[in-house]
């Protein structure tokens, strides 16, 4: 029992047993991954999983620590993507102000963070299950708006031919540099979330998630904390949006469609929304499924497969893969300690 309690305590503090060793091992694996991976595995699997994981991480931050399940994270990433397309360089012949990358990227992330704060400010006026409704409505409305509007979003075709910058003589869209760029961003965000969950702000946010009324009575500004969490999530989603638009080289309303919005939620839920590693696990699984399940079930019925996987996860383990792992591991550990009857 004490092993159980220890694990629960450690997980509550954001630390699985042997966390440091596991983190080092994972970091070494990820850094050495390009040695064994082909260009396809480096970009289409590695880089893309990290980007999807980042977007899902921004959702995990809101849902896991703030109790706010958002379906608008891809919309927020899309804000950064569209800013890069409009103020940077594109081939579509619309806008394309050609700002240098060191102005453009911070500006895009700032825009995403502000958009996220706005979404947060709108949705924290209600709570709980309503957040899903409101954010889904915002995501859907944004998708239709981007599709209809030509003066800002260039309508249905969106923007094509958006290059990643060349900095220090490196083409950052090349397989190896792009992978390391994604890995660096993801590690930074992951470490920041791990640090943030134990900061004063992180602890306050988790307390608000558990009992907003009591925190309000204690004199904490519940709304401000929640909106700031949205701002931070917006920074992560915005960074992911910039990477996403460089990865695809284009952005269109399809990038922020309802399907992709739900996909982010699926990734986070499949991976587990109690720990920041969950979204990345989920992203790897979903990207692998997306890439290879097509050979098994055919491209047409892929969504049925992913839907079933999602349903099974929600039914069997509310905490996703992480939850499965934690559910079976303590039992194994306990069995090792109990003497045979």
């Amino acid at each position: 029992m004490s092993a159980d309690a220890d694990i629960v305590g450690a997980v509550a503090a954001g630390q699985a047993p042997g966390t440091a060793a596991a983190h080092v091992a994972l970091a070494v694996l990820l850094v050495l991954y390009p040695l064994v991976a082909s260009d396809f595995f480096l970009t289409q699997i590695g880089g893309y999983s990290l980007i999807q994981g980042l977007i899902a991480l921004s959702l995990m931050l809101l849902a896991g620590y703030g109790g706010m399940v958002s379906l608008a994270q891809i919309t927020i990433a899309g804000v950064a993507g569209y800013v890069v397309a409009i103020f940077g360089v594109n081939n579509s012949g619309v806008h394309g102000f050609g700002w240098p990358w060191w102005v453009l990227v911070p500006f895009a992330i700032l825009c995403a963070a502000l958009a996220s704060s706005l979404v947060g400010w709108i949705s924290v006026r209600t709570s709980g299950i309503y957040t899903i409704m409101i954010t889904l409505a915002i995501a859907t409305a944004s998708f239709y708006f981007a599709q209809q509007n030509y003066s800002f979003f260039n309508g249905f075709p969106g923007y094509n031919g958006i290059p990643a910058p060349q900095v220090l003589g490196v083409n950052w869209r090349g397989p190896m540099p792009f992978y390391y760029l994604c890995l660096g961003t993801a590690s930074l965000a992951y470490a920041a979330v791990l640090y943030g969950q134990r900061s004063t702000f992180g602890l306050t946010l988790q307390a608000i998630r558990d009992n907003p009324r009591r925190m309000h009575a204690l004199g904490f500004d519940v709304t401000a904390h929640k909106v700031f969490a949205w701002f931070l999530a917006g920074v992560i989603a915005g960074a992911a949006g910039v990477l996403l638009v460089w990865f695809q080289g284009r952005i269109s309303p399809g990038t922020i469609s309802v399907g992709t919005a739900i996909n982010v939620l699926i990734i986070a839920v499949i991976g587990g929304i109690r720990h920041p590693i969950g979204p990345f696990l989920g992203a790897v699984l979903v990207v692998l499924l997306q890439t290879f399940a097509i050979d098994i079930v055919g491209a047409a019925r892929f969504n049925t497969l992913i839907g079933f996987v999602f349903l099974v996860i929600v039914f069997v383990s509310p905490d996703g893969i992480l939850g499965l792992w934690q559910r079976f591991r303590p039992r194994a550990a306990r069995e090792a300690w109990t003497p045979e009857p």
Partner: protein
Amino acid sequence: MTDTTRPMQETSLRPQGPTGRQVFGLLGLVVAAVLLWLIFAQWPDWLDAILISKKAFLSAILNGLTLAGLYFLVASGFTLIFGLMRNVNLAHGSLYLLGAYIGYVVTDWTGYWLLGVAAGFIVLAVVGIAIQRLVFRRLEGDDLRQTLVTIGLSIIAADLMLAVWGGGTYQIATPEWLDGAVKLPVVTAVKSNGTAVYLTYPLYRLVVLGAAIAIGIGMWLMLARTRIGMMVRAGVDDREMLAASGVNVHAVFALVFAFGAGLAGLAGVIGGSALSVAPGEDVRYLLASLVVVIVGGMGSIPGAALGALLIGLAEQIGLVYFPTYGVVLTFVIMVAVLAFRPQGLMGKAR
């Protein structure tokens, strides 16, 4: 004289002026008067210049009302399910689309449109009971997981419907007695030779509007006057107390879910006859239900009616007067309501 002045003095002594209710009533009267004038008066040129033409304006209003009727049918089931079971059924749009496809198949097969409408309602009601029994009963009390499950269901449903019916667009054939247009007693313009041009409008759309109003009134009567309606209202307010007082809440849940899903299916057939049936419509009507319910107030049928009216009108007026920003108008309404009345116009604060 003294008799008449005394009450006036009394009212003037009251600390505040007219109550909020009086102000809104007065505002409503003014708006109604302006609308009546807009509908029946001969428009001056400057008004034509602003609002394109009287015909365009009135068509937008009528289209908005019809769309509001359709939205009301879809959203009322959504709001009932939400109010009673506290789960956001994000597969509601899929129920709409499935109803539309079933209506198309049955109408095409039998040749009777009314059979298609009935099939849409009945099949979806059965599907609703199945979902309630197989999914929601198992996840009782966990609202978030119930909602997540409906997302999974909507993904699978959309994919399977794509597999069965393909990506094409269908139009459900309406019967002959509903075809054609009616001439409304509203003059849109007067020709130079003095003959008046009357506004014509498709009969079917007026029937949709009438059906929505009839169903709305029927639903209100059922909720307000019958025993089952009483149980549903009690369940919306406090489901634990309802269960404690000896009512089989699961039966009530199943009934409401069946009715809500059936209404979505019915709306699918009716909407599929007025507009078209295609993949992607599920998301459109899910968005409509969400916004209508957020604006109108969660769990409230009059709220759904009011929300549907606002959103339907906003969408159609937006379509005519600022084409690419129509969605923004809907969005602004939603944000404004959330900013000033987070529980929705008719919702109760929880």
